[in-house]
């Protein structure tokens, strides 16, 4: 057996160490390991058992990790195996990062049926989606049927996570009404479920009011109103309802075929982005093309040739146009 097929076999038999190693390979920036990853996926093949992928997004401090902790434990109690892939912000200065997710998921991290893996977002920016997607597939191969992808609510992460999962759960802070009204429309549009967290003590009333006004605004903007749940992960209220709603959402999407449609569209997007990444790599890594690109860029900067013309000529070097 080759290294790749051995590792693939170990992943499929539920070996945690093998799964962790395989995710490392998928995240690696070394080209030689890329080949290995392709081989691993080739020997894993298609996994038939159904899984449900949930993206969890929301502003920092909304309590996403604590919510996943409680939600995950409930799901495990109901028979699931849960994987959490957490994507943390990265210090732009040096590429290092502090990954503290497990400190906020103490109960889940002690569960034998849970696998939590925080990933640094350093390295190739455009490639993050692809790497996370591979990590999701590896977790599914290892038998995890409920996958949470947790992102931090900065920049484009909400829209990006929507291209990787079957369902986007937006976590908002109870009693922070202004925050919702000032939130980017895009974030609300990708949400399939909304949870107002930290609705405990004297914040319950404010959270109920926020939820009502969000439902009203949804009914104007989207027609179909996604479930909006008021809960407290800390007090464990409303979490069972959320898990129920998530499960129903998954079952309905699978039954009416929308889940498969979504995944198929996502595969198409990954293909597109992989192709774009590949092209970019060609023009930065292959010496002759990199040189040509630099020269073309200089000419464009000087104004001696138009940007679109320079790009067309450069691409023609790669694939001579049929005449």
């Amino acid at each position, binding site marked *: 057996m080759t290294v790749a097929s051995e590792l693939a076999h170990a992943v499929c038999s539920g070996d945690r*160490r093998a799964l962790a190693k395989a995710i490392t390979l998928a995240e690696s*920036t070394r080209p030689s390991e890329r080949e290995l990853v392709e081989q691993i996926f080739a020997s894993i093949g298609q996994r038939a058992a159904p899984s449900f992928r949930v993206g969890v997004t929301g502003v920092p401090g909304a309590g996403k990790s604590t919510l996943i902790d409680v939600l995950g434990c409930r799901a495990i109690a109901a028979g699931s195996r849960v994987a959490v892939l957490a994507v943390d912000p990265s210090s732009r200065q040096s590429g*290092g990062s*502090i990954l503290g997710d*497990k400190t906020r998921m103490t109960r889940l991290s002690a569960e034998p049926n849970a696998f939590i893996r925080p990933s*640094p977002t350093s390295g190739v920016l455009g490639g993050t989606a692809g790497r996370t997607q591979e990590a999701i597939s590896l977790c599914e191969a290892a038998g995890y049927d409920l996958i949470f992808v947790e992102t931090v609510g900065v920049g484009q992460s909400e829209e990006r996570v929507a291209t990787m999962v079957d369902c986007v759960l937006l976590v908002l802070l109870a009693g922070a009404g202004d925050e919702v009204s000032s939130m980017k429309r895009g974030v609300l549009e990708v949400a399939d479920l909304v949870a107002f967290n930290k609705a405990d003590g004297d914040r319950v009333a404010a959270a109920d009011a926020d939820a009502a006004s969000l439902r009203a605004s949804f009914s104007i903007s989207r027609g179909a109103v996604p479930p909006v749940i008021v809960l407290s992960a800390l007090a464990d209220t409303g979490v069972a309802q959320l898990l129920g709603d998530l499960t129903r959402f998954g079952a309905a999407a699978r039954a009416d075929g929308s889940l498969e449609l979504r995944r198929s569209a996502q595969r198409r997007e990954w293909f597109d982005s992989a192709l774009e990444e590949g092209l970019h790599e060609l023009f930065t890594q292959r010496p002759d093309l990199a040189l040509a690109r630099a020269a073309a860029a200089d000419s464009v900067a000087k104004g001696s040739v138009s940007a679109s013309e320079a790009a067309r000529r450069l691409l023609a070097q790669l694939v001579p146009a049929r005449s």
Partner: protein
Amino acid sequence: MPAAKPSTREAFVELARAELDGRDPETLITQTPEGIALRALYSAEDLQGIQHLDASSGQYPFRRGHRATMYTSRPWTIRQYAGFSTAEESNAFYKRALAAGQRGLSVAFDLATHRGYDSDHPRVSGDVGKAGVAIDSVEDMKRLFDGIPLGSTSVSMTMNGAVLPILASYIVTAEEQGVPPARLSGTIQNDILKEFMVRNTFIYPPAPSMRIVADIIEYATLHMPRYNSISISGYHMQEAGATLDLELGFTLADGLEYIRAALARGLNIDQFAPRLSFFFATGMNFFMEIAKLRAARALWAELVRERFAPADTRSLELRTHCQTSGVSLTAQDPLNNVVRTTVEALSAVLGGTQSLHTNAYDEALALPSERSARIARNTQLILQHEAGLAQVVDPWGGSYFMEALTQELSDRARAVITEVEAAGGMARAIEQGLPKRRIEEAATRRQARIDRGVDVIVGVNAFHAPEEPALELRAVDGRAVLQAQRQRLQELREKRAAGAVESALAVLREHARSGAGNLLEAAVSAMRARATVGEVSAALADVFGRYEGRVHTVQGVYGSYYEGDAAWAALRARVATLRTVLGRNPRLLMAKLGQDGHDRGAKVVASALADLGFDVDLGPMFQTPAEVARQAVDNDVHLVGISTQAGAHVTLVPELIQELAKLGAADVRVVCGGIIPSADEPALFAAGVSLVFGPAAKLPEMAAKLLALLEHSNEAE
């Protein structure tokens, strides 16, 4: 008309300019970590606008002392904090200390007790008897105070998490000595807010924890008129890296929150406020520490009067215990610590503390030995009896500099308090992570200043000793203590009436559930029936749940001190090279094993390594070796760093290495840092630890060794 006479300040600037050969006198200004600009000379102009300068000691706002006569009628109490191993061993230590001139006792409990676990609980195997004495029941407490009359010896107990069963055991022990609660004098720390901020020996979530605090204040108010029901502590904040304005501000803000909790219980401010006490650190910032204690008294009086308008002036008086700083002690050339402690003790006394603990010179390495404990105690005896410090009240009163500094620090602390109050009070501010973040930023800055040599520490980053003296350190055989405690627990459980224990615990659970009834009263009944500390804690956890700690970290702060530093840039370049070889950043899991909640060191190191380009996973606190091993495997790290401050490493680190091997991850390297006596090193290396860092290891050197380890193991592949 003659020209106006120049002011003192103007005159000084003129003279200084001449002495400095034209250098700008402004360059003499020192910026303190608190952000206060210290001028070279202070004068009468600096006193303008300061109120109540003419108030006597014993007069509002008590800047010069809460009582008029202060030490001239009663010197400060020499109160040394101690406890280790079994109750018998600690008892013998206490008796020797009392015979040698100590005035009151102060009990240190082990971490298993703090966190409400009996010694035979599987989570605490590495912690029993290590950083304090192991107490599981009233029987242990009776052994601890055997032959010590509790009616006439004041006892302070540092307990916050398992405060109910411990205080209850003390009350029952006194009762069985024939001493009623009304005659007990001393202090229970009972300050849970700072535990959530820095020290981390909490058990329950914040809301029920605050109820426990209020129940204890209520019980003490009704039954223990001579007893301090709380010791509102800034000590651990400064130890965790807080600057003095933060220490003072956050501590007084905690105090306001406790007052509100007690008022909500229906108590009158004058019933309980006179029994609130405080606890501050005194570090090496000599003048600022004196100013802090003076400012603390005045600011507290002002705040309590403004907000709660008590009728009894005793409600305005801030009384405090002080302890010299533990983090200022160095492992290198440790006899220097005698000098540090003396200077710190001086500022506590000049600031007007009511009682004082002086640290022993070997505490950066281990628990105090008999010899080092004696010298620590003698430090205070010498100050009291030989140096004449108790002969005058507030000798700094009226000093231009000291009065101005007192006011400036007070203003800064007030700004901190205003920020906390605007966030909705301390409980809310803690929820939002506000104080933790501020303290950690300050801690990271402090570490960077030391590592860069901006702050000089003799024997550590300058003036190294040619050779380190050999010291005899106290070592506690944790396994022997564990064995003894197990045996006793078994005997206790066999002898006691199980039915009585069960029904007492049922009452406790019911009180917890309904919110009615006093939890301390119920805990006293349970301990009297010979329930254990672990059983009482577990009964409450059945209702309240156990709280898991939050870890906040700052990034970029440490690295920013090294901008433009060639050695730092070289380290970054090595990380970058390693990154291309590994295909990812070097990755390290920073973990805490056992019940030790001191996480400042772990977080500062994590922050610095991340600034260098490492990916650092932070594990939850209070982990077992098996849990840490699994996290290391799941995150596929290259290294596990164990931060240890309480001696549990001897047992738990070898177990961790075995657990890693069990999971097929023997290639993950384990390194340790923290308070590790050199005597422990051979055993750690033999168990397979790759590197051991002492308490004063500099971060850049630490990082260089970690990189060398990774570079080497990668070549070997």
